[in-house]
């Protein structure tokens, strides 16, 4: 069942793209060392020195890349907003200062007015305040879902890639099944298991969808590493198996994992909005979240599109920021792009 390199070229598509990214792992590290000839002495201290130069060489290329800088700037502003949002919001996101203007029949959504530049929502809460505060929950959902997927994927991928044999086959069959279900539909199925949707079920559902992607990525780069010269050299030197896995193989696989994680941050935020839209999001809106605000805006969108546009713009900009960062990271870590 082991795929030959040729087979992998055209085999199962989604897996392919992941595997292709995985292939950049070993080569990046080798390239960062500045040569193809790796002596045994080098192999002994791969993890420390190599991690350093890998980051250093990538940073050198990223520092002047406007795409990366734009993405990083957006991300930075987003994180700052997530931290200070509640303090700069003019109103409490739960308070309903415009409640008196909400008339179910004639005027369900109060418009912009002095003191409320974006107007209110359908229960008279200040839209601007909710947007400013909402960033924090959005960041939490994105980061926790990514971390969950990363942790699950790391565990499975390391198991499969490091042990091999039947463990590998079993883990990979399950991963293949998960990959063959479209992400959102998988998330929907998982979210539907829960008795009542909540922030936690949203996070879990999105995290599970990412597990197979990270697992396959890790396993692919582990396999590539296992065949690489520096692991062979370490083994020849009698380095213990677990030390090879954790000190040599894992650190060198991290490049593509970081890239993938950055991209997943974007998808996680978008998918959270999708779940919310399908009624599987967190119904408790005392702590606003952009995806939730966007999902809940659907009832008023035809008459009051701004209710959807503002949170959507926030999501688009932040997702774009993560994507720009991820894509430029991928380019910087890809040895092919250095020509």
């Amino acid at each position, binding site marked *: 069942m082991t795929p030959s390199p*040729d087979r992998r*070229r*055209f*085999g*199962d*598509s*989604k897996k*392919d*793209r992941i595997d292709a990214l995985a292939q950049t792992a070993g080569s990046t590290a080798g390239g960062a060392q500045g040569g193809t000839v790796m002596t045994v002495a080098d192999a002994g201290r791969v993890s420390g020195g190599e991690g350093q130069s890998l980051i250093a060489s990538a940073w050198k290329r990223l520092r002047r890349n406007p795409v990366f800088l734009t993405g990083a700037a957006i991300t930075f502003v987003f994180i700052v907003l997530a931290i200070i949002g509640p303090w700069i919001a003019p109103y409490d996101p739960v308070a309903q200062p415009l409640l008196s203007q909400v008339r179910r029949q004639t005027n369900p959504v109060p418009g912009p007015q002095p003191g409320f530049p974006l107007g209110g929502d359908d229960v008279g809460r200040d839209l601007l305040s909710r947007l400013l505060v909402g960033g924090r929950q959005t960041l939490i959902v994105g980061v926790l879902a990514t971390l969950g997927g990363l942790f699950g994927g790391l565990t499975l991928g390391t198991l499969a890639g490091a042990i091999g044999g039947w463990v590998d086959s079993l883990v990979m*069959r*399950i991963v*293949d*099944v998960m990959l*063959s*279900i*479209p*992400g*959102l*539909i998988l998330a*929907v*199925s998982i979210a*539907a*298991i*829960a*008795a009542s949707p909540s922030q936690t079920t949203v996070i879990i559902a999105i995290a599970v969808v990412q597990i197979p992607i990270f697992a396959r990525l890790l396993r692919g780069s582990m396999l590539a590493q296992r065949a690489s010269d520096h692991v062979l050299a370490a083994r020849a030197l009698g380095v213990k198996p677990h030390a090879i896995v954790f000190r040599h193989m894992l650190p060198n696989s991290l490049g593509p994992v970081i890239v993938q994680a950055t991209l997943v941050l*974007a998808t996680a935020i*978008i998918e959270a*909005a*999708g779940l919310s*839209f*399908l*009624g*599987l999001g967190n119904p408790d809106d005392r702590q606003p979240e952009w995806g939730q605000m*966007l999902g809940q805006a*659907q009832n008023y*969108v*035809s008459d009051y*599109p701004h209710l*959807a*546009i503002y949170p*959507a713009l926030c*999501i*688009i*900009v932040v*997702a*774009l920021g993560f*994507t*720009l960062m991820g*894509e430029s990271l991928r380019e910087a870590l890809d040895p*092919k792009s250095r*020509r």
Partner: protein
Amino acid sequence: MLRFIVRRLIQMAGVVVVLSLLLFLWFKALPGGTVSAMLGERATPERRRELEQALGLDQPLWVQYWNYIKRVATGNFGPSNGVLPGRDAFEVFLSRFPATIELATLAILIAVLIGIPLGYFAARRRDSWIDNLSVMGSLVGVAVPVFFLAFMLKHWFAVELNWLPVSGRQDPTMDATRVTGFFVLDGILTQEWDAAWDALKHLILPALALASIPFAVIFRITRASVLDVVEEDYVRTANAKGLTSRIIRGRHILRNALLPVVTTIGLQTGALLAGAVLTERVFSYTGIGQALAIAIEVKDYPVLQVLIMAAAAVYVVVNLLVDITYAIIDPRIRTR
């Protein structure tokens, strides 16, 4: 070639078996178990026990799984209890399926017909304003939630400008003959041109929304692939032979550069199915996506199971077809 197809079919069967096991366990893990799911929370204990026996839920797990497989293999997922109450869940799927196929086909056509030429063009004029603009556009395309894009398209082109219909598959007052369940195709087959045109108009906005992500991905893969291929030695050879740029473009650049794009198109079926769930809901388009959204809302588990199974099956089958196509167009695989 035949061995390759057989091996893929076996792999496919493996995926379906594991998926059915997962679905089976998932069904068991539902809050309150199968019985509550079917009877609702307020059933009497006697009624519950009766149903448990009738369904064989008192038997060991592996027997239950075997029975489940037997039922599923014959398309018997049980009656729908929400989407179309009383109808067989599999029938619900069958009645909705053509609509989604129609929508997804148009969406992928839009994505391919714009994505590939634009990708080639952008790559050949690397770093020009048109390249930067389309790369930026594709990045934004991925960042925009599909249902939000659907909302905006609907708002501008259907509600504000009134150019295209707001929702549905066809004007309900239109008395169109049904042949295949594909409305556009039906109109063409029966030569009811107004019916075909009306169905097509209903398709345009949802298809555009649905095409956004596949377009962005196909564009970027094409661009990256063309950028790789033009650096290849054989393109330099083709130039050294003094060939016309038309032949270099078609025979030497595109024929190689499109190989990864073919695989990507298969990969996008997954994104299309997921996107259909969101888009169809926005446009009240009665396909499997909309059925899935309703099934989630009203907890119609039999329909949910069929649809998830079907989504995976469609994905696997499309990718099998893509792999076969790939093998046909890439001699390195065909002639091995």
